[in-house]
């Protein structure tokens, strides 16, 4: 049971006419990036040289931008704060924001993804790398457009896109600090790899019984339950720098700089207890679900994208292995089968 994301294996196509805003206080860097993007596709690219100019451009724009490239280090409001500001607007919650910087320290990378960036490009620009990032952003944009076409809201305010979600699909859970999209998590890990950063620890969790909630609850309530569970899992991590993503199939992946003192079983138990204690206001008894934690996977040097995927596979396999040997472990000791 390997989690997947609906954008992972999108067909190779090219989008045209996408509108982008490039924000960088260095005019030459703006021009270089624009030239690079122009070489790859037919885009409508605007450039501005400060976060304040970007906010004005966004506020005055009639049709929303499709994508943002944001320099991190700018005088005044920096790119990370600008990213958070952009993401605070409903119409831009799912719009890809790609951070641009000459810095490759872990704190910069982490803060960028935690602010809602979907990817990270380092200066000087490697045009092949830029092209691959742009292709990924295109796929996200078009998937978002497809989902939004004929957008209808149900009684809980969920969009048509949300209504079409499958249980095994990665879902972006918004509004919880340190919780990021699964695609962003993979890109974050790959960026750590490119920057030759060591000592990253991954631990996977599975919320056993969530598939029953998926089957019984309206999508809006299911998403509320998922958000509640994610909040409790993040709280149980007891580490402000932990990043978490929901990968689908009831599975979560958490990333920390160090595996020292990290115990997936303890965290899972605390998260389950917190979830049961909180209760769920919807028509589902949340004491019938329980977290299980895998063995923390310490990752050294990750030199290839394949290594990131392999590490995620190992982390997920670990939680599935543990779950099989520990079941049943939920609140009222009932056995659940996982789809």
């Amino acid at each position, binding site marked *: 049971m390997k989690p997947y994301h609906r954008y992972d294996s999108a067909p190779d196509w090219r989008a045209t006419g996408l509108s982008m805003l490039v924000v960088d206080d*260095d005019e030459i860097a703006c021009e270089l990036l624009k030239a690079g993007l*122009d*070489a790859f596709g037919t885009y409508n690219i605007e450039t501005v040289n400060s976060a304040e100019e970007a906010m004005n451009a966004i506020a005055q724009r009639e049709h929303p931008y499709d994508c943002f490239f944001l320099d991190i280090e700018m005088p005044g409001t920096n790119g990370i704060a600008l990213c958070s500001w952009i993401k605070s607007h409903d119409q831009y919650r799912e719009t890809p924001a790609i951070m641009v910087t000459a810095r490759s320290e872990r704190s910069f990378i982490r803060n960028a993804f935690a602010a809602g960036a979907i990817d990270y490009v380092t200066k000087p620009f490697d045009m092949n790398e830029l092209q691959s990032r742009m292709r990924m952003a295109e796929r996200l944009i078009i998937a978002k457009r497809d989902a939004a076409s004929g957008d209808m809201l149900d009684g809980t305010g969920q969009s048509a896109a949300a209504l079409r979600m499958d249980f095994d699909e990665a879902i972006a859970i918004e509004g919880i600090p340190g919780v990021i999209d699964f695609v962003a998590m993979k890109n974050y890990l790959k960026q750590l790899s490119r920057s030759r950063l060591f000592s990253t620890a991954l631990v996977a969790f599975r919320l056993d019984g969530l598939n029953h909630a998926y089957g019984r609850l309206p999508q809006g309530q299911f998403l509320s339950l998922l958000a509640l569970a994610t909040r409790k899992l993040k709280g149980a991590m007891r580490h402000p720098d932990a990043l978490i993503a929901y990968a689908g199939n009831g599975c979560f992946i958490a990333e920390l700089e160090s595996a020292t003192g990290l115990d997936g079983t303890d965290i899972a138990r605390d998260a389950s207890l917190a979830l049961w204690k909180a209760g769920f206001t919807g028509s589902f008894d949340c004491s019938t679900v329980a977290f299980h934690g895998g063995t923390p996977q310490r990752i050294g040097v990750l030199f290839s994208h394949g290594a990131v995927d392999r590490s995620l596979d190992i982390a997920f396999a670990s939680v599935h292995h543990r779950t099989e040997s520990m079941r049943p472990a939920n609140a009222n000791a009932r056995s659940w089968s996982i789809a």
Partner: protein
Amino acid sequence: MDNSQRQLSAAIDRLRPRYVSTMTEYSERLTAALDEQAHVGPNDTALEEIRFVAHRLAGTAESFGWGEIGAHASHVDTLMEGCDAETCDSHRHLTPVRRLRDMLLKAIRVEAAPRRA
């Protein structure tokens, strides 16, 4: 070279003269900041100016073919982070800045020299 690479190269060639004048401006700003450090003594404004220039060069020089300048600017950028008037050590912090300024001046001279056919 495919069409997108040709397009990109053409854009970089178009920007190049502008970048060379920016490099000239950066070398002057580094010289002024170094002079200020030498004559007035360590001060945060001049150090911040050095870091600003190094950061800019680190992000763009390689794209125009000056990879060595970009790499050294990146080193200076990292070195200057956390360096202030109190902690600034002339040899450790400012020698690499002088080298960066000299690399810029050399690149500008080479760029200005008439090219042989």
